[in-house]
């Protein structure tokens, strides 16, 4: 790198400072709101820093009392977790063999692109028939409905991502196993998958993030604590009339923790995956 003039250095550091502040400030404010007293949040002029941090909302969100906001939050947390895990599980079970097939028996590129197209299709193309079918099957307001409908997003995504993961596993090690008499299933499970474990883990985590973030379908197909996920619950909290802004903020902070931690953990593969153009914006 060429040497910088002192002025250029000052400009770089000033720009970096602006960047860091602009990223951190809104998130920091979300956290501040969650620990400010209700009075402080509705007082003018605004108090930027609470006189006494008040963590009581976090405590309130972890109670199961009937009719409490904690109950709504905890059930939504449970629903989000189980829907995301189950949908990711289904997507992997069907997506691994499909991706393996696309990788090892090339020539069906049209179909592979077809899979990609369904992933990018707008959900409005599917919402009405899915609603009718779920209503007919009595699945409206159930976790099962969300697991099924999330397959429309996660399955093509996982297939696409894993295909490139399998592509980078050398065929030679599989051939060695097959010479030793291993069948195709044995080869896949005992040779290929262990080598592609990192890709598999990455795909699973991305799938979890996608399911955790989904809002549109969840809004349409769930109606109470039995199946509402966190995004829908947050939408409800935010739309309420007499709302406690601090409480909404606390829910937001808690709902963000898992994906943000996963995001930091995924940093390396995220950047690699982004460059491959396979990650949703």
């Amino acid at each position: 790198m060429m040497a910088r003039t002192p002025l250029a250095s000052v400009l770089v550091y000033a720009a970096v400072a602006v960047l860091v502040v602009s990223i951190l400030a809104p998130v920091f404010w979300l956290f501040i709101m969650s620990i400010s007293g209700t009075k402080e949040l509705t007082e003018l002029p605004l108090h930027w820093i609470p006189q006494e941090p008040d963590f009581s909302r976090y405590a309130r969100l972890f109670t199961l009392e009937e009719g409490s906001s904690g109950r709504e939050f905890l059930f939504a947390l449970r629903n989000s977790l189980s829907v995301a895990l189950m949908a990711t599980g289904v997507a992997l079970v069907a997506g691994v063999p499909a991706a393996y097939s696309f990788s090892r028996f090339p020539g069906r590129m049209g179909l592979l692109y077809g899979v990609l197209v369904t992933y990018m299709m707008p959900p409005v193309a599917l919402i009405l028939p899915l609603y009718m079918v779920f209503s007919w099957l009595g699945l409206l307001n159930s976790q099962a409905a969300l697991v099924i409908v999330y397959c429309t997003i996660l399955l093509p995504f996982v297939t696409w991502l894993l295909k490139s993961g399998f592509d980078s596993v050398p065929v030679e090690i599989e051939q060695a196993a097959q010479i030793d008499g291993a069948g195709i299933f044995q080869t896949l499970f005992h040779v290929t998958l262990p080598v592609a474990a990192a890709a598999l883990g990455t795909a699973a985590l991305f799938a979890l993030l996608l399911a955790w973030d989904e809002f549109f379908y969840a809004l349409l197909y769930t109606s109470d604590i039995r199946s509402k996920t966190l995004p829908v619950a947050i939408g409800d909290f935010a739309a309420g009339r007499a709302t406690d802004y601090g409480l909404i903020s606390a829910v937001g902070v808690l709902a963000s923790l898992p994906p943000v931690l996963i995001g930091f953990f995924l940093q390396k593969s995220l950047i690699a995956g982004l460059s491959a153009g396979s990650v949703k914006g």
Partner: protein
Amino acid sequence: MAWLFLLPMLAIMAVVTGFPLLNTLWLAFTDASLTGRGYDWNWSGFENFAYLIDDENFRVALGYTFYFTIVSVAIEMLLGVLVALLLNQEFFGRTLVRTLLILPWALPTIVNAMMWRLIYNPEFGSLNALLLQFGLIDSYRSWLGVPGTAMNMVILADVWKNYPLIALIVLGALQTIPRDLYEAAAIDGAGPWKRFWHITFPGILAPFSVALILRTIEAFKVFDIIYVMTRGGPADTTKTASFFVYQESFSYLRAGSGAAYAVAVTLLSGLLITAYIVILRRRERTS
């Protein structure tokens, strides 16, 4: 064997995507209404589409969708490249700042929307407090309550969440450009502007165009951020195409015409998706 492995995926996709898609297409040619027990329907031919073509409200909603898509994606791409160029400089704490870019990307879309809604709050919001204390405004404003302003404020929230991703993509590409290219160009007397257009830009063009089109496809579908921040208001000035279909289908329960609007939106998305596939295939062939 190849097909056997594909079977579970194909079977699931046929049920959860293939069937609903065809069913939507069929619905679009009926006058079905959404009831608790299935559709009440009669064939209506091209009536829904004839209505749709003349529907002023739908055209307006499409207009807002294009506005949201073009403005937000343009700003995200521009900011993304600028921030990537910045992060490609050497400075203390660079790795940490790069990691920080993950934060907005990883924040759930709904949390982002809710966070900005609170920041914009007309009575107690921190944006009002900040601008007032710096003397930039003289009284509190209703950022999301005024037609014209509301959409731009939604775009700001969307940009904050999405440009870091572009920055990371572009930064990844920047780091693959060999340093000596710049040194050679500098020796040949090329200025910074020339170096950018002849070395940097060709180097980031491929990932830049993929990111551009993926963001455009996503932005065109926008729903969640609108739902939480404005519900399409004020005076429908943030009502985008997806929101329009949602209301037609689930508020007014007009399944037939809702499906027709959905087909129109899907076709428009289809144009963008086709462009994306064409670019991907071209890359595949050249590599």
